[in-house]
């Protein structure tokens, strides 16, 4: 197993040498929000399993999700979902071969950032105002 030793080659310049741009930051945020949703599926699984298991299991889930830590996690999950969805729509536009001009790409990046927060707050606002309506 005397394999060839990897030759130590210089690495290409990385993150630290580039000027921060909006499209770069939103690309990173897309990945981070995606990874957050990956972990967040555990909340969805817990919710469904607790409903399937019965009232006792559900009240445990309910007490967790109405605790401030649970609420915070659910809020972050909502934001990640909204941000990732808008980022995905941005990618559809690019996949269609459109929206590559610098100005429009930056505009979409800003809309992803702002829209993610606006939609999150909007969803929570509706949630609170519909409390117990069903």
């Amino acid at each position, binding site marked *: 197993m005397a394999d*060839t030793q990897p*030759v130590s080659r210089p690495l290409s310049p990385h993150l630290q040498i580039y000027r921060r741009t909006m499209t770069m930051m939103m690309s990173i945020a897309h990945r981070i929000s*995606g*990874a957050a949703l990956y972990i967040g*599926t555990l909340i969805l699984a817990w919710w469904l*399993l607790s*409903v399937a298991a019965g009232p006792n299991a559900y009240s445990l889930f309910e007490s967790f999700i109405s605790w401030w830590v649970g609420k915070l996690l659910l809020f972050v999950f909502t934001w990640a*979902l909204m941000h990732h969805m808008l980022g995905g729509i941005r990618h559809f536009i690019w996949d269609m071969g459109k929206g590559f001009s610098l100005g429009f790409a930056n505009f979409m990046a800003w809309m992803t950032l702002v829209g993610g927060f606006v939609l999150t707050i909007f969803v929570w606002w509706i949630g609170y105002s519909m*409390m117990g309506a069903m």
Partner: protein
Amino acid sequence: MSDMRTPYSRVHGLGSARSGSGHFILQRVTAVENVFLAIFLIASVVALTGSDYETVRAYLANPLVVILMLALIISGILHMRAGMQVIIEDYVTGESAKFLSLIGNTFFSFLVGLACVFAALKIGFGA
């Protein structure tokens, strides 16, 4: 066995794994589905905010809701597995660490997915 060739020269010209387009298409198709299904999930959770157990259970037992929930789970799990695969391939450099991470990704995705599918079906069939 000693091999004078560099790792690059050993794989040069062998071509790709021929699975890139399939991965890309799976990622995009599930993404389109997820836009609609995520809106369904959010609308459901918002509508159920503050509801008691019986109401939540009755809502989730509706056949249409069960079907949409199953679609969301399957589409979501395939999408997140494909996405995490790319993240692992980008950042995990050691061969064995990469291999284990990729297997772990598949295990985690399918376990969470199957748990959700089981729960959604159990609620749906009223067992």
